[in-house]
């Protein structure tokens, strides 16, 4: 399948289309709005379900298979906030605090980007490793911590922010779901599959409809902050994504797995990181980090990034 065909396939998936529909609804000033509770309910469902599926898979994975990818994940968790920070300082010329805020977002991970990549891989008939959700959980936290350390250098609410990240609902649901899946195994899976597995992509589609609305309401930032932020929000994921694909390959992942791993590395957080940054670095400008992460990097990865990481993975490993 050639590049264009891949892109078309990705663009025409219900998920990506729903995202655009959400954007269109907001731009048309439709009164369509998801109640916040629906957003919360869907995200509880999605995060727990990812964790759970990962846990069930993990219960069948020998420890050794997991070792290298886990190390690669930790390495990325430490490296990515640093590249994010220095690129922000050099290329965007923002303050130390704003650079740290951006670093926290590009040091953490987006569960939805991960899912979109996973779906894409599966639609192409790839079989990404089942334990990848474990790595999502592993990648979520360290990047935020490193970035906050960069921002604070020994002051204030770092402890509180760290606790906030570790006990934050996305970590608790991902890791908790993972443990539930790990302990209940295939036997548990049988019972809850029609709820946590079969309807999953449909629920994700609805969620992306909402994400599209949210992203559109952040689009205005692009006009204000300008072109350099767009470059930042696309080149950084490409860099991280390529690194991720490569490390995934080195760590022994299948091409499909390496591609999803790359998408993880390329993604930026918009749930855990904003909350942590708002507490620990209140002086940072939310328009900057939310705009970059949500209105630039997320759609970029969703639409262009994922097929690119796929092509890379194929080129290296397939």
């Amino acid at each position: 399948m050639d590049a264009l065909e891949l892109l078309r396939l990705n663009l025409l998936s219900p998920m990506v289309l729903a995202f655009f529909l959400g954007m269109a609804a907001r731009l048309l000033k439709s009164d369509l709005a998801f109640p916040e509770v629906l957003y919360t309910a869907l995200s509880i469902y999605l995060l727990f379900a990812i964790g759970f599926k990962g846990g069930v898979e993990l219960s069948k994975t020998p420890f050794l298979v997991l070792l290298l990818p886990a190390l690669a994940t930790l390495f990325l968790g430490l490296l990515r906030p640093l590249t994010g920070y220095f690129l922000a300082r050099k290329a965007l010329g923002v303050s130390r605090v704003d650079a740290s805020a951006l670093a926290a977002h590009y040091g953490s991970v987006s569960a939805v980007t991960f899912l979109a990549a996973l779906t894409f891989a599966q639609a192409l008939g790839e079989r990404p490793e089942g334990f990848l959700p474990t790595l999502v959980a592993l990648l979520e936290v360290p990047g935020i911590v490193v970035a906050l350390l960069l921002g604070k250098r020994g002051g204030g609410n770092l402890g509180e922010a760290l606790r906030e990240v570790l006990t934050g609902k996305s970590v608790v649901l991902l890791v908790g779901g993972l443990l539930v899946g790990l302990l209940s195994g295939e036997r548990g899976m049988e019972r809850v599959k029609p709820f946590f597995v079969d309807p999953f992509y449909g629920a994700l589609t609805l969620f992306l409809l909402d994400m599209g609305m949210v992203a559109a309401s952040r689009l205005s930032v692009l006009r204000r902050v300008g072109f350099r932020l767009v470059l930042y929000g696309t080149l950084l994921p490409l860099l991280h994504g390529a690194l991720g694909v490569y490390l995934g390959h080195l760590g022994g992942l299948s091409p499909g797995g390496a591609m999803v791993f790359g998408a993880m590395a390329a993604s930026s957080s918009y749930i855990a990181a904003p909350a942590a940054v708002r507490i620990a670095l209140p002086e940072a400008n939310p328009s900057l980090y939310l705009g970059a992460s949500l209105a630039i990097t997320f759609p970029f990865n969703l639409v262009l990034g994922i097929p690119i990481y796929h092509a890379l993975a194929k080129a290296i490993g397939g």
Partner: protein
Amino acid sequence: MNLVPLKLVTIVAESLLEKRLVEEIKRLGAKGYTIVPARGEGSRGVRSVDWEGQNIRLETIVSEEVALKILERLQEAYFPHYAVIAYVENVFVVRGEKYV
């Protein structure tokens, strides 16, 4: 009717601050509070039902002294960086002695 004149302090703030604000006002002497979820717009733009977190509207009935302490603390620690607004008014409270 036993009505005690007291101060009603209302704080509208981004919901992320809820836990901290509750701790602060209790530390400064509030005996209770009531919170409702809210959305709004101010100098920092629209804060609505989007997931980035809406606002909360927190009310607490306190003595004048505690009211002032709370407002001072807000002015000092929260107004500079967070979306917060606070005001105080006079109310007459049933069994008001409970709240001072």
